Each structure stands twice: as C-alpha cells, then as structure tokens.
C-alpha cells in the first residue's frame, strides 16, 4: 500500500502540493516513487523559471525510465531542492519530507482542482 500524507493536495499525475500562503511546495507521492523504483536523477527547473499548471516542469529518472513531472500549479520557481542533486534517492526514502521545487503561485485558485488526501486515496484505488 502506498502512503498518503494528510494535509497535502494531490494531482492525477501523482505530484503533491503543500500550500503556504501564495507559495506551493511540490513533490511526488509515495505511489509515484514506488512505481518508478530506484530514482537516480531528478531534472529540476532553475530558480525564476516559469511553470504552468499541467505542463511538464522536469523529470524523475529511474534505472528503467524517465517520468515527466507535471506542475500542479502555475507560477515562478523560487527554490529547487539542491539536496536531490547529490542524493536523488531521498525521494525513495521519504517522498513527503523531500520536496522538489517551491513555486510562487500566479493564481492560487488553481489549487481548487486538486484532490485532498481522501480523494487521492479513492483515485489510487480506482487505478489499481
């Protein structure tokens, strides 16, 4: 079973968002890291790059394949998690404690289309 952290919002492409004012902290869910296996590289945008809701903003690479990351919100990247450059496996160890990017949202209302933890749980069950 995949863990689902409470208090986060989730996208259908398995990213999570933690909303802090107009800031969105973005990572991938436990389901996502489990299906990818050993993560060996995280391709992240740079600070000040624009991201657009539902568009690709980077990728997570396992031995097998590259999986694109889709931004759950629109805005400007204010920080990327540099620790993932040295140790991408952190995403396997704890995908909720290890975020990928922080985005200053241009339209915080966009989070309204994301799922809460309960809805994401049901979403995963339907996928199984």
């Amino acid at each position, binding site marked *: 079973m995949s863990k689902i952290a409470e208090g986060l919002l989730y996208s259908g492409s398995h990213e999570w968002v933690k909303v802090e004012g107009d800031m969105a902290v973005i990572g991938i869910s436990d389901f996502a890291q489990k299906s990818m*296996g*050993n993560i*060996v*590289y995280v*391709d992240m945008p740079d600070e000040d790059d624009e991201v657009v809701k539902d568009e*690709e903003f980077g*990728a997570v*690479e396992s*031995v*097998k*394949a*590259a999986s*694109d990351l889709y931004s759950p919100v629109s805005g400007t990247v204010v920080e990327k998690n540099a620790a993932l*450059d040295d140790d*991408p496996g952190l995403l396997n160890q704890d995908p909720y404690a290890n975020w990928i990017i922080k985005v200053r949202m241009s339209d915080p209302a966009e989070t309204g289309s994301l799922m809460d933890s309960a809805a994401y749980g049901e979403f995963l069950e339907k996928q199984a």
Partner: protein
Amino acid sequence: MYDSHVALGAQMSPFGGFMMPIQYSDIAAEHLAVREHCGMFDVSHMGEILVTGPDAEAFVNHVFTNDVTTLSPGHVQYGMMLYPEGGVVDDLLVYRMPEPETWLLVVNAANIGKDYGWICQAAGGWNVKVSDDSEHYGQIALQGPDAEKTASDVLGLELSDLVFYTFKETEWNGEKVLASRSGYTGEDGFEFYASPEVTRKIWDAFLSAGVTPCGLGCRDTLRFEVGLPLYGHELGRDISPLEAGLGVFVKLDKPEFIGKDATLALKAAGLKRKLVGMELIDKAIPRAGYPVEADGKQIGEVTTGYHSISTDKSVCLAFVGLPYASLGTEVGIRIRKKVFPGTVCRKRFYDKKYKK
C-alpha cells in the same frame, strides 16, 4: 514458467512476443548480484533454429558472417546474418553440435519468425533441413563469478573443463541438458538449454538454493555496461556491423557470404558513422533516440543509455558522424529541454570477466 515468475512477484512486460519478467525485486540489486556472486535469467524466449544435412556447414557459412569452418564440435561462435545490402538480419550464436552435419543457431526472440523465413528462403538449392525448434527448448542463463560453483553445488554438473564459448551435452536427473559457457552480461557463466519441462526444474532447483532471479531489466544494464550490442538498438536493418564496431565477427576473407559485397564496398568507401561510448558530466540519463549535438547541429543519436549501476556514471552508446567519433571529442546530448555536456569514450564501460 509465467506463473513461477508472477509467484515471485515479478513485474511482467511484453517483449519479443512473450510476457517476460522485467524485474523481480530491484534492477540494481539483481545487477549487482550478477557482478558480485551470480544470478539467473529465464531466457526461454530466445529462438533455436536447427540446420542439418550434407550441406549444413557450407550453408551456415553462406548466411553467417563469422567463419564456421574453423569451428570444431562443442564450440560456439558469435556473428550476424546480413542482408545483401549489408544491414543486419539478426545477431546470433552458432553451435557446432557433436552430431555430424548438425548446427544450432540461437537467435533473438523478436526475430525468430523473420530469421527462420530468411534462412529457409536462403536454403533453396542447398541440401539442408531447416527447422524452428524454439518450442522445444527453454533456456536458463546462470551468470556471475560464482556460476561454476553454483552449477556444481546445485545441479552436480562439473563444468570447470569448459572455457568461454564452448559447450557440452550432459545429463541432469537423467534429462538432457546442453551446458554452454557463454552469456550476455560480461561475467563468467553458463547458458543451459533443455526441454521446457526440464528448464522449469532447473529454475526451481536454483531458486531453492537461493540463486537470485534476475529480470530482463538488469540483463539490459549488464550487457550495456560491457558494450554488447542489442538488436534494434546497436544493430538493425540499416546498420552495418562495421559501423557497430563488430568487424572482427565479419570474415571478409571468406570466399562468399550474404552481405559480403556490400560490406566490402562500405569498407572501401569509408564509414560515415560509428558507434561510440559517451560519458556525461551530469547524472541526467541519455536514453535511446535522444539527439547528440556538436558544432550547433545534430551529429548522432543515442542507441542505449543508463546510469551505470557498476560505475555510478551516466553513460550511453550512440551512433555519431565519423568526424566526431574519436576518443575525447566533446559533444552535447539533448535530454528533454536541455543539452548536457559529454565526452566520447570507450564503448566498454566495465571490463568483461570471461573464463578464457
């Protein structure tokens, strides 16, 4: 054996028309088991084509690039079958069986139908019988430095007399097994050919003894690290073995074989592209199909790439234009939106450890 793989928790995927195990636990763990101890692969999907008859030796030599007239019974040769235009039908192993006028060709799973058709078509006018015996053979590859000891401990087979690329027909539990010292991992090891039922029993015996079951995922990372080609990536209809760096397996001094004239012509005209290794500075992974760039233009394409498990580097094999093929050439590899810097290096990222 599908049910056995699923029972072990394998992630199954279609490959070459078969449902095959990609991984059981974790590609990296399976990969390292083979490099450090040993692991086993169910490669029953591989094709076995038998050529027999008075003309068998001359005919195999006609369709095959290597020279089988130098092969004695109990020996194996690697080589290719070529189209008259010089591209590759398939790469394969040729076994000269102990029985007279009997040759076993082991071919890639995805190419069985094509190869069998090709060989049958070429056999017109030759006094040979060609049969696709793939259904009658299963195959287990036991690979790694502990393979010889494991085969002895678990199956009671004494194989220390075999050197790499030799084989013998033997018996296990009263059943016929062909034990070949060969493989596709760069490690010492064996490939056991037997009936599907006996293959299943060999698999179960190794499993009970604690041998690591390995999927096709790490079979690919292992063969890649030692620079062994995979048909459809480094070899194909539009690729000459010379471009892939496999000229040593194409005996141009043979009187004739299918594809010889085209290969000679390409050699005389000079290669336009070559398969090279590349090492990236960053850890982004160059994957098959990604463009290779230099001087502001595309100069090639990645054929296989991984984050190498044994060397912890991002490396790939790629075809590049000849001016960019020398060691140390600086290139860029386009991975998604960015271009990552890399350097042309040897195709062998990890050294083979065969028993010679």
